[in-house]
């Protein structure tokens, strides 16, 4: 991929579920490197947008390009370069943590055993533990280990905060995301915890009723609102739905 080519290029994307428009003419370009926060109220269209980026939804109108490719036409080519942590915590309950890592390793040529082991130890996961016996937070940690261990070019986190406890969120996730960005890779994460987005993200996209209302570097957004907190800006731009 050319250095100037965006990691994600969404153009005029519209998606309807029955009569309801989940996304309306959404256009978004995310260049390489940095942490991008996607914020919006529940049902605003964050997960729908992420699912298009992963190729789990086919664009009805408009186009989606990830790392220069169509994620629907070339799922293997795109997904092998993306790390993804699902909001749904749907890891197979019958697998053990060690088996999950062994299984996931087979799909990614860039899997780094040493880094995977380091992450597993950092997250306090027992390789012999069955996924179904883990708590919600531990499942999210296991999902994060297999999403990070192959050092993906693009890391997509859908509401990671809903599963992770405050210590992991503040001390570990933040540090990991910063490291990824510092290495020139890209992170896209959706969250409704604005304090966390403000702490980690370089760039914020606000989405409301399927439309992007703000998409700019965090500093620019804050400067434009007189240095107000993201919480206050969110209420001003998105609130009152």
């Amino acid at each position: 991929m050319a250095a100037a080519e965006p990691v994600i290029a969404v153009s005029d994307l519209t998606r309807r579920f029955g009569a309801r428009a989940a996304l309306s003419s959404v256009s978004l370009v995310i260049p390489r490197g940095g942490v991008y926060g996607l914020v919006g109220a529940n049902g605003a269209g964050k997960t729908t947008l992420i699912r298009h980026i992963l190729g789990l939804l086919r664009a009805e109108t408009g186009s989606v390009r990830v790392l220069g490719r169509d994620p629907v036409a070339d799922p293997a080519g795109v997904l092998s370069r993306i790390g993804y942590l699902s909001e749904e915590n749907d890891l197979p309950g019958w697998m053990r943590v060690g088996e999950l890592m062994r299984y996931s390793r087979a799909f990614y040529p860039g899997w780094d055993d040493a880094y995977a082991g380091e992450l597993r130890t950092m997250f306090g996961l027992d390789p012999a533990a069955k996924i179904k016996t883990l708590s919600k937070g531990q499942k999210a940690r296991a999902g994060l280990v297999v999403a990070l261990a192959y050092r993906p070019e693009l890391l997509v986190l859908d509401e990671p905060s809903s599963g992770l406890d405050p210590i992991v969120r503040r001390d570990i996730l933040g540090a990991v995301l910063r490291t990824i960005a510092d290495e020139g890779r890209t992170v896209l994460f959706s969250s409704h915890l604005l304090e966390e987005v403000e702490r980690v993200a370089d760039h914020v996209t606000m989405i409301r009723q399927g439309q992007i209302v703000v998409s700019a570097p965090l500093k620019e957004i804050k400067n434009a609102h007189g240095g107000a907190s993201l919480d206050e800006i969110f209420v001003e731009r998105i609130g009152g739905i």
Partner: protein
Amino acid sequence: MRTPAAAIAWELRQRHRWGLIALLATIFILGAIKIAVLATQAHPELHDATFALLVPVPLAATSLYLLAVFTFGIAGDLAARESMYPPRMLTLPVSTAALAGWPMLYGCLSMTLLWFAMRIVCIFPPGVEIPKYWPALFAASLLAWTQALTWMPYPFRGMRIVISIGLLVSIDVVALTALGTRARESTMLLLLAPLLPLAYAAALSAVRRARRGDVPDWGVAKRLAPASTRSAPPRDFRSAARAQLWFEWRQFGRSLPLLVAIVLPVGLSLLFLFREADVIVVEIVVASLLLPSFMAIFVAATAGKSSSNASESYGITPFLATRPVEDRALVVAKWQAALISTLAAWVIVAVAVPVALLWSDAAEPILHIARNVDGALGRPRAIVLGLLILAGLVASTWKQLVQGLYITMSGRDWAVKGIAFATLVLVTLGFLALGWILDSRYRIAVALNAIPWLMAAFVALKLVLAMRVMQRGAARGLFTRRQLISGAIAWDVCVLALYGVLTLILPAILFRRHFLLLVAMLVVPCVRLAAAPLAVAGNRHR
């Protein structure tokens, strides 16, 4: 809705309204047929096939449907250890007695009403006295016990299926014995009456345990596994395809050999009891050979699911959908897991049946049949016939496991249920047509002449559908030109091989060559297999 009872009833009605409407429509159609038949004959003599269509088939189908509805078992994983009672309902602020009691009461009432309705609308053979009340109590008990067994958590996987089959068979034996001995109503009512409160007590205990999250764990597998393998670090997979095959094998592949290994010894143990009765020995062996295909029907329901936890739908989970593999690779892994599963099940059968026959000293009737076939066909043909039957049974088991993937992997719940309903309708119409044809020698002759033409029409339809599926698959990038050509050649080779074997073993005077070719073309699967990757693509990228 002011009460939990009304809320539970409302949910059952809303979720299954189309099925319940279809059930009512079935009853009305049967009633209409009865009125039409009685208008022409006061005491109608029904042909066997027509009787089967008008009484046992609808009775069994409607009863099974109600069993599935009121046990909450339609979308669940029957083989799972965990209770199949919906977890969402377990958190409702109502007593455990209400959770167990209301669905049981509604189910028992529905089964009772179903029996009385069927008794009115079905055409029973003249001279047969149909009991009035005890079958209603029998049906209610059957449902109540199925609920209790379905909601019960079990110590190991597959145990629910084994126990349920055992229960259904035992209850069938009771019903047939009662009908055969013309048992009195009062006797049967007295015998059956205690079953309902006992089932309620069992269901109450089951729901209570499910509410506590109590799943017994005997740790059979753990104790059997050597200590060294328990703590051994996992091996690496050579490729993503191997990893996905392992995933599918662990997800559903082990179920079939496990079920066969559990059920087969029970059936074969009967050889020790009936070794003197030649007919029963042959029946036991035939049933054992059909067991993998039969069990594959149950396993196939879970084969299309992407997660054993996805009890509510067949939708592909984000975890599986985001594996960096092509859509067809997800299907190929299922086909391969199904093949290994089939072979494992057949190894068990191939070892267990001869051992049981020799051990029980019951081999003579089977050897007698083998000698007769050998004498009639000659040794080479007899061996080919035996191998062909074995290969056919193995292929049929695999086909049972994979032929529905194109529907289940589509993720469309309505399609899964719609196909089941359409199949039932087609079977019903087929039986109707069969009964109508068999009633007249002229119609039988016409039908026999029409069979090759009908088969040719089906072959033409199959080929057209295959072309459409492959065109769509190619357009979506699911198949390359080379894969399409290889697939077509493989299908041709299989058809020609089967045709060759059929012409070798079947006498030409009875079966025309073109007829055998049509049979081979219809039997070797094509469209449904090719449609599975399309279904996955549609489900994965909606």
